């Protein structure tokens, strides 16, 4: 259980890292926290010739509000986000979601950008990128390119990132007064079987601008506009949440696999969405 021979390049600048990726001619892989990549190297499921270690690249560890957006540098670790000392208005629920990821040793190394670029379809950050309508800033020698999360995500472990591109920051564009992520996993810290995220504002006593995103109940994490149609304009109540949950469960298109049948996944979607709604009202962001 050892990585294959490889060339490790640790660059201290963005341009250095981008040249190293370009010089690797498709045989390179970006190493950030390594919590997903190194297991693959150890098991030799991945054997890149060049690892471009970006931990010393400056300017990738910021976390700041720019207008409505929360801008997260690619190298912000989960632990940093969970324990960020200042308030994160409109995005406060990211802390609770981050605590669902792995365990402390994982969260201490894992990075936000690394998780998103790795694109495990059950990843919490990917789901929240969808919920918050994220824009991803990808750097290369051609310059900076912005990609929306829907276009970014091609499939399991597949993204729009080119071989010589580096995800440098993620812009979560949509803050919510109320938001939560709920998931069901076999054990704490495991990837979820199904995860659901919901966010909305309340204007004049009615739900406004809701968004609902679901992972584990379709080919890729996806929004559920049918649930949003139920939420919007409704009065936040147990009845509304139960109704939206039923509609969401009926709208998703899960398939059966070893972790759960399609019917089971629908039951999880309904239960988790209802729980998430009740949770957001308890803990307003």
């Amino acid at each position, binding site marked *: 259980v050892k990585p294959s*021979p490889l060339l490790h390049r*640790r660059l201290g600048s963005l341009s250095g890292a981008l040249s190293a990726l370009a010089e690797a001619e498709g045989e390179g892989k970006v*190493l950030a926290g390594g919590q997903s990549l190194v297991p693959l190297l150890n098991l030799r499921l991945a054997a890149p010739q060049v690892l471009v270690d970006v931990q010393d690249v400056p300017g990738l560890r910021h976390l700041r509000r720019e207008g409505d957006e929360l801008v997260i540098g690619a190298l912000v670790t989960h632990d940093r986000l969970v324990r960020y000392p200042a308030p994160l208005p409109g995005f406060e629920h990211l802390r609770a979601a981050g605590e669902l990821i792995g365990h*402390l040793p994982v969260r201490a190394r894992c990075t936000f950008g690394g998780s998103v670029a790795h694109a495990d379809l059950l990843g919490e950050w990917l789901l929240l990128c969808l919920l918050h309508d994220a824009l991803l800033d990808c750097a290369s020698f051609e310059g900076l390119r912005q990609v929306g999360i829907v276009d970014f995500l091609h499939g399991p472990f597949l993204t729009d990132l080119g071989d010589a591109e580096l995800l440098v920051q993620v812009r979560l564009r949509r803050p919510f007064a109320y938001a939560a992520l709920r998931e069901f996993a076999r054990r704490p810290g495991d990837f979820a079987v199904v995860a659901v995220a919901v966010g909305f504002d309340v204007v004049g006593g009615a739900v406004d601008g809701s968004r609902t995103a679901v992972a584990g109940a379709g080919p890729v994490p996806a929004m559920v506009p049918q649930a949003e149609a139920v939420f919007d304009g409704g009065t936040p109540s147990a009845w509304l949440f139960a109704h939206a949950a039923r509609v969401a469960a009926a709208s998703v298109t899960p398939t059966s696999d070893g972790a759960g049948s399609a019917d089971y996944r629908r039951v999880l979607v309904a239960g988790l969405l209802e729980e998430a709604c009740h949770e957001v009202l308890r803990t307003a962001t």
Partner: protein
Amino acid sequence: VTEHRHIRLEVNGRSHELDVVHRILLSDLLRDVLRLTGTHLGCEHGVCGACTVLVDGAPVCSCLLLAVSVDGCRVETVEGLAAAGGSPLPGALSRHQALQCGFCTAGFLVLGESWLRRGPDRESAREAVSGNLCRCTGYAGLIRAFEDAAEEHDSST
């Protein structure tokens, strides 16, 4: 081509300068090169936590770090914690019979040490131990031992 690099590491307070191949894992460097065999290797893909060490104070799976990635860092292993002494954890593990074969114990000691240093709240012992695997005693004793150690830690600080 086997690429080497010269790295500096502080391990348990001692400075080391080493020539390492790029692909060597921190876990293998500790065990095979520095002969610090207290760090155990279970799964070698970041699931079991037996190889947990502290890097610049943060708990990490040493099997998921290339040694070249921690060039310049400060590493603490179970041997370092033992030499420093004063931790309430070993005694607590013993009192609560929280070990049997001992394979996972080094990992739990290092994990527990980082948990104590972060200022644990009583509720989170259960969450803290969930990161590592123990296949003999189960977790009841471990949770009690962590809680006990936290109480001792609080009263001594």
